C-alpha cells in the first residue's frame, strides 16, 4: 500500500514548523542564497514560485508562458533566499532564446541550488532535462510535481528509487494544493547550506573515440580551470560545437564553484 502523509497530522507534528517560511515577495535585499527554478514548460514552476515567494506571477496552462526570468524571495529557517523562475525548456542543448536564458543562468549565474520541477505524469520526457542539469551541477533538488494528477491517472512514482538513481534529493509535491512544499523547502535549505559536492552526473557512457576526446579535453580544461565542477559537460559542449561555451572558454569565463557563502550573481543575463 502507498501511504500518503496526512497533512493534518504533519502540521501537528512538532518538527513541522510552518512559521519557518516567510514569503518576502520582491524584497531581494541581503539574500544569503540563490535558488534557480528550472523545468519543462507547463510543469507548475510558476505555481511553485508563487507558493514560495507569495508573488502572483500569472500561471497559464500552456507551454511557453514564461520566456524571461522572474525573481522573488523568501526566508526559511532564518536564511534569506532569492528564487529565480527560469523559462520552461525541454533541453539545455539547443539555441532558442528561452533555453539560453535558462542554461546561462544555471551555468553562469551560479545558483546555490537548482530546483528542477518535474511533471510526475510525464517523467520520462522530464528526466531529459534533469539529466542535463545534473551534468552541470549536483547542487540540485528534483521537485516531483503534479503528484495529484499522477494519482488520478493511477500512476505510482517511486521517488526514493528515483532519488537513489539520480543521486539528488527528490521531493514529491502537488504545488497547487501546497502539498509537499515544507519538504521541498527543507531539501533546498539542506543543499544550500551543505558542503559542495564535486561530482556532476555523467550523461552517457561514450563510445570509445568520444571517450578519448572527452578525456583529452577534460584534462585540458582542468589545467585551465582547476576547480571546474563540470569539465566533462563542458567538454561535450565543445565537441558539439556550442558557440556560447566556446566563447566562455576563450574568455576564461567558466564559473568555478561558489564559495560556501553565497556570492552576488557574477553575471546578469540580459532579458
Amino acid at each position, binding site marked *: 500500500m502507498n501511504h500518503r502523509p496526512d497533512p493534518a497530522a504533519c502540521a501537528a507534528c512538532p518538527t513541522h514548523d510552518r512559521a519557518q517560511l516567510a514569503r518576502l515577495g520582491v524584497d531581494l535585499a541581503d539574500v544569503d542564497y540563490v535558488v534557480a527554478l528550472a523545468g519543462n514548460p507547463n510543469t507548475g514552476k510558476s505555481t511553485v514560485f508563487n507558493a514560495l515567494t507569495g508573488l502572483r506571477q500569472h500561471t497559464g496552462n500552456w507551454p511557453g508562458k514564461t520566456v524571461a526570468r522572474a525573481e522573488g524571495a523568501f526566508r526559511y529557517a532564518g536564511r534569506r533566499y532569492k528564487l529565480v523562475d527560469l523559462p520552461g525548456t525541454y533541453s539545455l542543448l539547443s539555441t*532558442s532564446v528561452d533555453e539560453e536564458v535558462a542554461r546561462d543562468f544555471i551555468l553562469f549565474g551560479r545558483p546555490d541550488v537548482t530546483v528542477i520541477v518535474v511533471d510526475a505524469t510525464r517523467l520520462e520526457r522530464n528526466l531529459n532535462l534533469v539529466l542535463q542539469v545534473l551534468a552541470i551541477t549536483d547542487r540540485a533538488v528534483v521537485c516531483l510535481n503534479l503528484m495529484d494528477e499522477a494519482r488520478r491517472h493511477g500512476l505510482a512514482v517511486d521517488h526514493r528509487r528515483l532519488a537513489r538513481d539520480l543521486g539528488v534529493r527528490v521531493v514529491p509535491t502537488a504545488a497547487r494544493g501546497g502539498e509537499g512544499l515544507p519538504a521541498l523547502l527543507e531539501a533546498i535549505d539542506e543543499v544550500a547550506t551543505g558542503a559542495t559536492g564535486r561530482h556532476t552526473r555523467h550523461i552517457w557512457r561514450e563510445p570509445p573515440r568520444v571517450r578519448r576526446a572527452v578525456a583529452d579535453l577534460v584534462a585540458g580544461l582542468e589545467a585551465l580551470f582547476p576547480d571546474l565542477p563540470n569539465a566533462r559537460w563542458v567538454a561535450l559542449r565543445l565537441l558539439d560545437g556550442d558557440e556560447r561555451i566556446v566563447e566562455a572558454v*576563450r574568455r576564461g569565463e567558466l564559473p568555478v564553484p561558489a564559495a560556501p557563502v553565497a556570492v552576488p550573481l557574477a553575471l546578469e543575463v540580459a532579458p
Partner: protein
Amino acid sequence: MTRAPASDAERLLARAQQWRWEIGHGFHDQLMEAIYAEAARLADRAVTRPQGPPRFDLDRAIDRLVTSRRWGFALMLLLFTLVFWITISGANVPSAWLSWLLIEQGHPFLKHLSAAIGLSPWLSGLLVDGMYLATAWVVSVMLPPMAIFFPLFTLLEDFGYLPRVAFNLDRAFHRAGAHGKQALSMMMGFGCNAAGVVATRVIDSPRERLIAILTNNFALCNGRWPTQILIAGLFIGSVAPAFLAGFLSALAVVGVAVLGVLMTFAVSWGLSRTLLRGEVSTFSLELPPYRPPRIWRTIVTSLVDRTAYVLWRAVVFALPAGAAIWLVANVSLGEVPLAGHLVRVLDPVGLLLGLNGVILLAYVVAIPANEIVIPTVLMLTVLMTGVADVGAGSGVMFELEGASLARLLDAGGWTLLTAVNLMLFSLMHNPCSTTLLTIYRETGSRRWTVVAALLPLALGVLATFAVAQTCRLVAIAARTP
C-alpha cells in the same frame, strides 16, 4: 572566476575542433539519443503504471473533439463568439451606470466645485473638461467589457484550451512558411502585442522569429478589443432585429479577429517568400492536460493583473491626451480652433478611406496607447459637430450611452461604412509605441522596427480604401437604373 592565459584557451579550442573532425557527424544526435535512453531507463524503474485495460481518458476524448479537423475550427469560432456575446451583452448595463455616475453626475459636480474654489475658466477647462472627462470616458467605456472579457479569456487559458488552438493553427502556419510556435506568440498577442513580441523568444530560428514579430500586430490586443466591441455594438448590432443584435455584434468582432488571423497567415506567407526566405523548422508542441481552473482565483488575478493593468495604462495616457484634445479644441488659429484645421486637412484622406479626419487625428493622438482612440474620437466629434444637446461647451463630452451616442456619431456623418472601416483600421495600423519599442529591443534593428510599423499601416490603408471604393461603386451602380 579564473582567467586562463588566452593562448592556452585557444590551443584547447583548436584541439576540440580537431576532435570534432575526427568524431564526425552525428555527435549531437548520439548525445541526444543517449540522454533519451537514460531518461527512459530511469523513468521505467521509478514508475508503476496501472494494470488492466486503459481507462476511459477524458482528456484524450476532449482533445480528439477540439483538435479534430472537422470540428476543431467550428468549435473554436463558436467558443470565441460565445465569449464576445457574453461580453457585449453583459457590458451595457454597468457601462450606463458608470457613465451616469462619472459623467452625468461627476462632471457637473466638479465644474461647480472648481467654480466655487475660483479656478480660472482656462484651468477648469483643462482639468475638468479635458483631463477628467477623457479619463471618465476611458473608465466607463472600457472597464465593463474588460472586466467581463479578461476573466473569461483567462479561464479558457487556465483550462488548457489555448495550446489546442495553437495545435489547430499549426498546420496553417507551416503552410505559410512560418514556425508553428508562432501560434503561441499570436495567442499572447491577443492580450498584448508587446508581450506577444517577447513571447516569440520560444522560436529558435531568427528568420521565423522575425516573421512572428512582424505579424504579431494582427492579433487584436487589449487596447483594441474595446474599440471593436463598442463599434460593433453600436453600428453592426443596429442593423439587426433587437433579439439578434448582440449575437450579430459578437459575430462581427469574431470576424475581425479571424480576419486578423488570416492576415497573419497571408503576411507570413508573403514575408517567407520575399524578405525572409528559408526553411521551415519542425518542433513538437505539447498538449498540456486539462486542469479545472480555480475559478475565483482566476477571476481575481485576471481582474488585478489584466483589467486593472490595462485600465491604468489607459488612464495614464488619457490624462495628457485629454489635456491635449482640450487644448487643440480651444486654442484658435484665426477663427477656427486648432483641431478644426487638423481635421480639415485630414478629412479628404479620411474620405478616401471611408473614415474621416476625426478618426485619423484620433489615431495620431493614440500612438502611445490604442486604448484612447474611442474617447478621442468622441470628444473630437462633439467638438466638430457641436451637437446641441450633448454638451454645454465645445470639446466637452457628456452622455455616452446607447441612443445618444449613436445620434452623436450620426451627426458626425458616420455610416455603417465608417464603422466597418474603423474596425478594419483598428485591426490594421501601426503598433502602439510600447510595442514598437519592444520590437526594437528584441530585434535590435531600426530597419525591422520601421517595417513593423509601416507594413500593417499600409495594409490598413489599402483595405479601408478598397472597401470604401467598392462600397461607393456599388451604391452608384444601385442608383443608376
